[in-house]
């Protein structure tokens, strides 16, 4: 004797529901948030690049086409507020820095923070590769009197902004920083090393 279609479909759906192995909600939220940030970041950088190039062009030649126009035209188009465009234009980022930022997927607000931190393109690229937070990039590293090699080494370790700030006074090599990162010392312990 056959079941009714309702019953059979319910059993079929029950089988699927019982067999499924979906990701946890936080993992899906994280993916959604990252995707949104990436889109907004790309959009913000597109406008920022245009604004910076226009500002550069006006400042140096009065008007007309800048030599960097070709580079900036490759960046995605954007929808930024006038305030955001002004801020990015004032950041005096080089085309190389803008290109490095374009790969990061940060939001416009985060980009404003990064722009004021005076980070090099190499640093930005290194931070992005290890998914540093903006707080880590600007809070600790921008104030630290470290060489770019030391900063790049720091960026590869999972150090918090507090830990990075505690390393300010140390003259450590990249290898030493790498070893410290693996040791996962507290800010107090790191400060005690100096």
């Amino acid at each position, binding site marked *: *004797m*056959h*079941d*009714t*279609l*309702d019953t*059979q*479909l*319910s*059993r*079929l*759906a*029950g*089988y*699927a*529901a*019982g*067999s*499924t*192995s*979906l*990701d946890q*909600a*936080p993992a*899906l*939220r994280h*993916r*959604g*948030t990252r*995707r*949104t940030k990436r889109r907004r970041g790309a959009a913000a950088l597109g406008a920022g690049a245009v604004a910076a190039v226009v500002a550069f062009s006006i400042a140096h030649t009065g008007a007309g086409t800048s030599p960097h126009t070709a580079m900036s035209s490759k960046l995605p188009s954007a929808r930024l507020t006038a305030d955001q465009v002004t801020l990015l234009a004032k950041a005096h980022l080089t085309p190389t820095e803008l290109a490095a930022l374009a790969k990061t997927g940060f939001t416009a607000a985060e980009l404003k923070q990064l722009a004021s931190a005076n980070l090099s393109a190499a640093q930005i690229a290194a931070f992005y590769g290890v998914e540093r937070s903006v707080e880590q990039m600007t809070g600790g590293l921008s104030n630290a009197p470290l060489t770019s090699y030391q900063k790049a080494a720091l960026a590869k370790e999972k150090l918090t902004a507090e830990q990075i700030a505690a390393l300010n006074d140390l003259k450590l090599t990249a290898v030493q920083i790498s070893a410290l990162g693996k040791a996962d010392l507290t800010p107090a312990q790191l400060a005690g090393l100096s």
Partner: protein
Amino acid sequence: MQGVDDFDEFYARTSSRLVGQVFAMTGNLGEAEDAVQEAYIRAWQRWPRIRSYDDPEGWLRTVAYRISMNAWRKARNRLTAQHRATESVELPGLSPDLLALVSALRKIPESQRRVIVLHHLVGLPVEQIALETGTPAGTVKARLARGRRALAPLVSEFDDDPRITPRTHIRQANPGRETPAHA
């Protein structure tokens, strides 16, 4: 972030059920899982708006179905019709009668499959199916009738239905053909 808790609660409450529904519509469990997860990611991106809907689950079901159909259409371009017709159903632990149902569902047109699932599994009335699928109510009724007819050999409830002729059989269903409905 705003809405994290109610999104997580909504996900925990509805995700498995949606996988079951999309699986019944597509006949492919892996594809249904991927589509449902992708739909939830998109929902999270616009959660403040989606959560205010009367039926957020319906929105997710529609998005997941469209995602799975797009994936299926892309796959269809890569596979031959012969391969699809003879592909085996790999669903471990599923009883023979449900395997037969999956196989039969795969052989009817996707539009019929969708309304069958929405009506007989989700429990939506014709008018609501019409809204969710964006088709006239008459078309929904016609698709339901054709889908039931195609599935009749597998279910008892249609045995005494005079509208379904004894000669009707799933093998005779023509997935590529669908005549306009008479509302």
